[in-house]
């Protein structure tokens, strides 16, 4: 037995061990991957490589024994309803954009038009903007967003000359008819 192993080792010693790519091809063999002749010859005689291929095959068998996650039946309807509504909204963006800035609660699209930034940017900033996640629907409370904006404004002035807030705001208040 020992002698046999030694002979095997000697036969394969001048061919390098298989790379991980080749070992994977061997393990996935049943999916139609082929090894080069020299790699196949090495594998035949090398216990080390053979052992690793067996381990990979055993791992694949473990994976095959796992259950398949199935989405709940109503998820299809929820998604379709949501997509239908978004498709509809995107056809008439003006119609929703105008009253939205007045609303107490805003959708991402409405917030985007309120802040005059692209909707994608709203999603990028989602981690920073205070928001509500209502069963997957993102909404923004106007008051929270205003508070958040105040915070950003204050921070932006921290390193420049500190100007009193009311002075900063007065021109805008004038323009808005105060």
């Amino acid at each position, binding site marked *: 037995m020992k002698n046999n192993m030694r002979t095997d080792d000697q036969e394969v010693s001048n061919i390098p061990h298989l790379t991980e790519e080749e070992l994977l091809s061997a393990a996935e063999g049943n999916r139609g991957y082929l090894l080069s002749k020299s790699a196949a010859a090495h594998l035949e005689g090398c216990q080390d490589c053979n052992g690793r291929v067996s381990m*990979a095959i055993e*791992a694949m068998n473990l994976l095959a024994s796992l259950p398949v996650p199935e989405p709940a039946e109503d998820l299809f309807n929820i*998604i*379709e309803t949501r997509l239908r509504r978004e498709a509809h909204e995107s056809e008439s963006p003006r119609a929703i954009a105008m009253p939205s800035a007045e609303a107490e609660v805003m959708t991402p699209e409405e917030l985007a038009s309120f802040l005059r930034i692209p909707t994608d940017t709203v999603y990028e900033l989602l981690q920073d903007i205070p928001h509500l996640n209502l069963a997957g629907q993102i909404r923004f409370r106007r008051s929270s967003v205003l508070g958040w904006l105040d915070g950003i404004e204050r921070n932006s002035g921290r390193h420049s000359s500190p100007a009193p807030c009311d002075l900063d705001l007065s021109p805008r208040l004038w323009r808005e008819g105060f």
Partner: protein
Amino acid sequence: MSTKPDLLFQAYLDGDKEGFAPLVNEMTPRVFGFFVRLGAYPQDAEDLCQEFFTSLMRSAATFEPGRPFLPWAYRIARNIHVKFSSRRSRLNVIPFNEWAAAEAENSCLPGGGHSSDPAGAIETRDRIDGLLSALTPEKREVLVLRHFQELSFQEISQVLGIPEGTAKSRMFSALIDLRSAAAKEDR
């Protein structure tokens, strides 16, 4: 070569913007399975599926006709999951199972936790995670895309933006890690 999802997405792009039902039917089980196998709880995976489809719709204009659909779609799904994971770790959210366990303890309903999981979706997720949590996130995503989502290594390299050879060696070492972890558990 055009796969079924390729054709359905093309039909959606060509047709009216409400013709997404066949695409939703085809892709929802795939991306739901993708998110759960990456470790999301069923409830979160459902939210992520919704996010996936709205993002898909919004990005449809940037899709180059003739390019393969699946790698592009999985890239979107994968980005959504990356954002979800970082949001989760940043907010330090209570994992759903702990919340559910606490909820079940407080509940007077007979059967405890099973009342909130009639279809065994959480149990399925936990069985999968029990095995796959032995992997690093990098290896896990390659393994999920290859073994369960059945993408080619060329497609995986497009989804993850890594060379094909890297994807293959990650896949192999993921399989070895899995087997070693399972062997330790048996002991």
